[in-house]
C-alpha cells in the first residue's frame, strides 16, 4: 500500500543517516512504505531496527510492510524549540504510536496536522510520509474519523 506523501519545509531540521541496519527502513519510507524487521524464526516485529531479533535473538530477519495504522500511546507538546531547525515548528507534537500489528510495537513520530487540544491517548492514527532534504520520514496523523 503506497501512502500519501506529505511535503513540508524545515530545511534545517536534522535528518537520519541511514546505516547498514536501518537503510531498508528509510528506503522503504522513500517509496511510501512503512517497512519493519520481522523475525522469520518467531514472527516478532520490531522497531527500531536492530542487529537481531530482540525476542529470540535470531539473525534471520526479513523486511515486511505494515499497515501504517495504530493508536496514540503517549504524546508530548513541544512549545519551546530545543533546536534551531524546529523554531518554525513549535508547537509540535511528539508521540509514541503503537501499531495495530503487535502489542507493544511502538514508533516515535510527530503527529502532523493536529491541534494539541484535540489529542488523547488511544486515538487512531495512520502513517503519512514527509520529504525532508532527500530523505523521507514516516509521520502519523489522526485518521479521518478522529480528526
Amino acid at each position: 500500500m503506497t501512502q500519501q506523501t506529505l511535503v513540508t519545509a524545515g530545511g534545517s531540521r536534522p535528518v537520519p543517516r541511514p546505516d547498514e541496519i536501518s537503510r531498508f527502513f528509510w528506503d522503504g519510507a522513500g517509496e511510501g512504505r512503512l517497512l519493519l524487521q520481522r523475525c522469520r524464526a518467531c514472527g516478532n516485529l520490531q522497531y527500531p531496527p536492530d542487529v537481531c531479533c530482540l525476542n529470540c535473538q535470531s539473525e534471520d530477519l526479513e523486511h515486511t510492510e505494515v499497515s501504517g495504522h495504530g493508536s496514540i500511546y503517549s504524546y508530548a507538546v513541544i512549545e519551546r524549540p530545543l533546536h534551531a531547525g524546529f523554531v518554525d515548528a513549535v508547537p509540535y507534537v511528539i508521540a509514541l504510536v503503537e501499531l495495530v500489528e503487535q502489542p507493544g510495537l511502538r514508533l516515535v513520530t510527530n503527529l502532523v496536522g493536529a491541534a494539541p487540544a484535540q489529542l488523547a491517548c488511544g486515538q487512531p492514527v495512520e502513517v503519512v510520509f514527509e520529504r525532508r532534504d532527500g530523505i523521507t520520514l514516516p509521520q502519523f496523523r489522526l485518521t479521518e474519523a478522529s480528526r
Partner: protein
Amino acid sequence: MTSLARDVAVVGVGYSQLSRAGEPEPAVLLLDAVKGALADAGLTSADVDGIFEYKFGPESPGAQDVARVLGVPDLAAFADILPTNPSGLGGVLAGVMAVASGACETALVFRCLTRAAGHTGGVADGPREIAGRNQFLTPYGYLGGILVEMALKKRRWLAEYARPEADFGHIAVNARRWAALNPRAVLREPVTMDDYLSSRAIAEPLRLLDCDYPINGAVATVITTAERAADLRQPPVLVDAMSYGTGRGADWTFHTDYLYGGTFDCANRLWRRSSVTLDDVDVAQVYDGFTSVTLSWLEALGVCGRGEFGDWIGDGSRLGPGGDFPMNTAGGQLAEGRLHGVSFLNEAVLQIRGQCGPRQVPNAQVALVASGLYLQCGAVVLTSG
C-alpha cells in the same frame, strides 16, 4: 569460602556548600566534600585505597585527580562510572562491591557537578545528520536530553491509570516540606499543589516543578568493612543489601516495561537479599530527578500495588514530616538540589545516625535508598546493624 564477601558499612559523609548562583570551580567544591567525608569518618587520605565516581558531564574531576590531590598513596580499586549507571548511587554500589569483595579496604565515593550539567536550555544547532539510535528520535524533534521522554512517560501514566496530575504534584510539594527543615537545601520555600499545577510546561505535560533543580555542589561518602567501622568515629551504618536492575529491553523510549523499566526487577532483587522487609523501613530516599521516576519506584518497591499510587498517596502528607512513610527527608533533588544519587545515600546514613536535627525521623533504624531510573536502577537497604 574464599576471601570474597565481607560485611560493609558507610562510615563518612561530606558535602560542599550547595548553590544555584555563580560558577564555582568543581575541584574546589569536591575537595570540601571529600575532606568532609573523611573527617566525618575519622579517617585520612592514607586510609583510602578505592575511589569511585559517577561522571555525567565533564566538569567533575576523576578518580585519579582526587587521589592525586588528596595524596592517596595508591588505589587498589577505582572507576569513573558512565552516566548509564543508577545515577550517583552507581559509585556507592561499586564501592560497596569493592569493599565486600576485598578489592579494597576503604572506598571514597563522590559526585561533583555544576548546574551546567545536562543543560539543554536555549536553541542550539546540532549535527545535521543523525546516526545510530538517535536517527529514529532526533529528526522528530525528540531533543532536550530526556525531557521529552519524561513528558511522554507522565502522559502515559495519566492515561493508563486515568489519574490527575496532582498525583505527581504530591512529590513536588513533599520535597519542599522537608527542604524547609534542611539548612543545606537550595529551595526551602514551600510550594502548594496550586503552585505545582500552574507551573509552566517544559514539554507538556511535563511541568517545571516535575524537574529537579540543577545546582553547583559535591557530595562524598566513605565506605569500609563493618569490622573496621566498629572502631571509627560515627555510629556504624551497615549495608544490608544492594541491587541493580535494568529490566528486559533496556531502553529509554522502547523499554519492554514502558512506565517502570527495571524498577520492579531491581526492587524485587533487593527485597530477596535484604534481612528486612518494606514494613521495617523507617525512612526512604527515592530518586526524584523527575516526579514520574518517584512514582514508578514507589510502586516497584511495594508501597502499593502497580497503578495504585493515586489511591495510596491520599493528601500526600504520609510522605512528609510525621507521616507513616517519610520520604526524601533532605528535600531530594527537587529541593535540596540535584546531586545525583549520592545525596540520597548520605541522607539515609544521617537519619540512621540520628543526626538530622529538625528533620530527624524518630528512631530511624532502617533506611531504603532507590536511585536512578527506568533502565538504570540501583537500590540499597541500610540498617543500624
